[in-house]
């Protein structure tokens, strides 16, 4: 059994919280005391049934305002899979929250209100999903009960969406007509939508393949910590601890340490009480090298045959996440895996109007702005293009005055 991480994009009005509540409720993932608390609450649907949206509300402030203002994580499990839901708010002022939720998701559910069809918000959410390079997209056309389960309505929305998606780099899109309120096609296939021949939403989530890149080409492991017991019996022990980002390492593989460029060979792979012959993407291990080289936290071990790009001048997509606008005269910090160095926004190439996808000129970025920039770093970074190798292509910008995370970077290429 593996884990599928998915994101739900949509606003309260689209019935997003109800959809998640329905998934949890119909898959028996709500425990009795939570259910009791639910029944005690005053919020009910018009027909007197429990308002399932309450299940995903978290903070007092949100209960008061009736909106989801942050990313909330929910967990449930079926016999086939474990699921982690990132429930993110849909309004434009919470774009950064959606970017955050999308950064760790394998799949996005984009909610469309059957009565409204493809709207500005749909374009914005789909753009973010393509920017963050999610593997799979599900377009859930919700509130089908409000349009008499009409096939024509659904087909028109699919056609509109396909036309819009053509402009975006979306990998794979699945369309499902649902009613979260009535439970149609969420967990169980609905007789009321007999014309739909595909899977229910849960069935799709349980079976969609989640792949990782484990080709040796992209073997990357940032060094997080160096294990040196310095005891009598382990006097010369020196292990490089880290989590393999992508690709795989095998004993006897030739590796390069970046940014120094020294080469060596893997002599041993350790994992606690085992010595596996191979360490592949996602594994946290300790690597040993044949040669004694100067390696510290922030360095990255890579396959000697396939180096990432190395540069101090990097073209990247950027989402600004702070209420304080970007200051191009200011020195920030950039954190890329275990490496942190100073940086500046050297140049702004353009900003994207994320409702229309138009590129516009900009002097600075405000909260939730997205666009393309040239980043200049104090130390060189060893990165891959985000769209090609996500785990080594993302980074954050930190404002050293406030220590807040103020930007999300998706690296593209070395800037000339």
């Amino acid at each position, binding site marked *: *059994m*593996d*884990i599928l991480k998915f994101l739900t994009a949509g606003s309260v009005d689209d019935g997003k919280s109800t959809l998640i509540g329905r998934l949890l409720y119909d898959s028996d993932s709500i*425990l*009795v*005391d*939570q259910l009791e*608390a639910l029944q005690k609450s005053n919020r009910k649907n018009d027909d007197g049934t429990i308002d399932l949206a309450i299940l995903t509300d*978290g*903070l*007092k*402030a949100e209960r008061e305002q009736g909106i989801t203002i*942050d990313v*909330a*994580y*929910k*967990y449930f*499990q079926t016999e086939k899979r*474990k699921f982690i839901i990132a429930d993110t708010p849909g309004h434009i002022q919470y774009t*950064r929250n959606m970017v*955050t939720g999308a*950064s*760790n998701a394998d799949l996005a559910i984009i909610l469309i209100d059957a009565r409204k069809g493809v709207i500005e918000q749909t374009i914005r959410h789909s753009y973010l999903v393509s920017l963050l390079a999610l593997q799979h997209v599900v377009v859930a056309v919700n509130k089908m009960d409000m349009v008499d389960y009409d096939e024509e309505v659904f087909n028109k929305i699919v056609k509109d969406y396909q036309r819009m998606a053509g402009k975006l780099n979306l990998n794979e899109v699945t369309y499902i007509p649902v009613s979260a309120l009535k439970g149609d096609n969420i967990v169980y296939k609905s007789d009321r939508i007999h014309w739909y021949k595909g899977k229910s939403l849960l069935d799709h989530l349980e079976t969609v393949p*989640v*792949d*990782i*890149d*484990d*080709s040796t080409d992209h073997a990357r492991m940032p060094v*997080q*910590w160096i*294990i*040196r*017991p310095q005891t009598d019996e*382990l006097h010369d*022990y020196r292990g490089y*601890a*880290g*989590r393999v980002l992508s690709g795989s390492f095998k004993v006897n593989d030739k590796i390069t340490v970046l940014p120094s460029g020294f080469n060596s060979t893997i002599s041993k792979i350790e*994992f*606690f009480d085992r010595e596996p012959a191979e360490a*592949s993407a*996602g*594994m*946290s291990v300790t690597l040993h090298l044949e040669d004694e080289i100067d390696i510290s*936290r922030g360095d990255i071990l890579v396959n000697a045959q396939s180096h990432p790009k190395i540069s101090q001048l990097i073209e990247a997509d950027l989402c600004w996440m702070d209420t304080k606008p970007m200051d191009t005269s200011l020195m920030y910090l950039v*954190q*890329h*895996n*275990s490496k942190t160095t100073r940086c500046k926004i050297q140049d702004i190439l353009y900003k994207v109007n994320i409702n229309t996808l138009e590129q516009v000129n900009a002097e600075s970025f405000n909260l939730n702005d997205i666009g393309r920039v040239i980043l200049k770093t104090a130390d060189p970074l060893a990165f891959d293009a985000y769209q090609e190798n996500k*785990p080594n292509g*993302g*980074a*954050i910008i*930190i404002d*050293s005055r406030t*220590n*807040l*995370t103020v930007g*999300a970077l998706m690296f593209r290429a070395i800037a000339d």
Partner: protein
Amino acid sequence: MSKNKLNYLDDLEAEAIHILREVAGQFEKPALLFSGGKDSITLVRLAEKAFRPGKFPFPLVHIDTGHNFPETIAYRDEMIKRIGEKLIVGYVQDSIDQGKVVEQKGKNASRNALQTVTLLDTIAQHQFDACIGGARRDEEKARAKERIFSVRDEFGQWDPKRQRPELWNLYNGKIHKGENVRVFPISNWTELDVWNYIRRENIPLPTIYFAHERDVITRNGQLMAAAEALNMDEEDIITRRNVRFRTVGDMTCTAAVESDAFEIDDIINEISASKISERGARMDDKVSEAAMEDRKKGGYF
């Protein structure tokens, strides 16, 4: 070329080890908050996997309310001997003796709220800049929004509105003087994941997690261990039953459930079919629906 992701327990384990190593790499004086419960026991195993054959780059810190189950303390001391790491204990009794907190009176008196003060004092005294804890997001809905690296001000306060965005597996541990970070490596685990992991790894647990015969009383509709700390009187009728505890908190606020789960397999079966979620067995959450959120803002674990 591609293949499926890791098995879910391996995946969760690798993520937690990565987080622990980030703590080691990013902070000057981290600590691991050890409660004696299964979640912090799991953290200790994960720390072994992250740092062996080296030593942990942090001590274990236990806040002793003085009303802990004796079984928990016995387990703690045995474990410390076994793993050979450093333990620092902060005593709530010391905070009471110093007049920093006042002991509650009456039947529902509990030292649970007092331990926040002892914890903050211990953090200040040792100048810890990061405290690793075993909280999970599935425990309670306020926790569902907590970051893995969660910044606290010098009063230990958590501000849900000023949380940093946390992207990919990049954890921003930058803080100002006086602040510290609470780190939750098993945020993404559920109660069932923890139990399955403990079974897979064969990790020993305090005996109170398993069904045993014990004198209990009924308080507010829940079974509590009959102990001096509960300020019992004639109205409390002691009965002897087969019970176990689903969490290992203070005796005054940790309710027992009737159970015949003597082995870990029984417990996993029991949880899989459970009708009461884990925190449902803790009285301190019953006070109000927003109880957890209020307590987190105040610096509770």
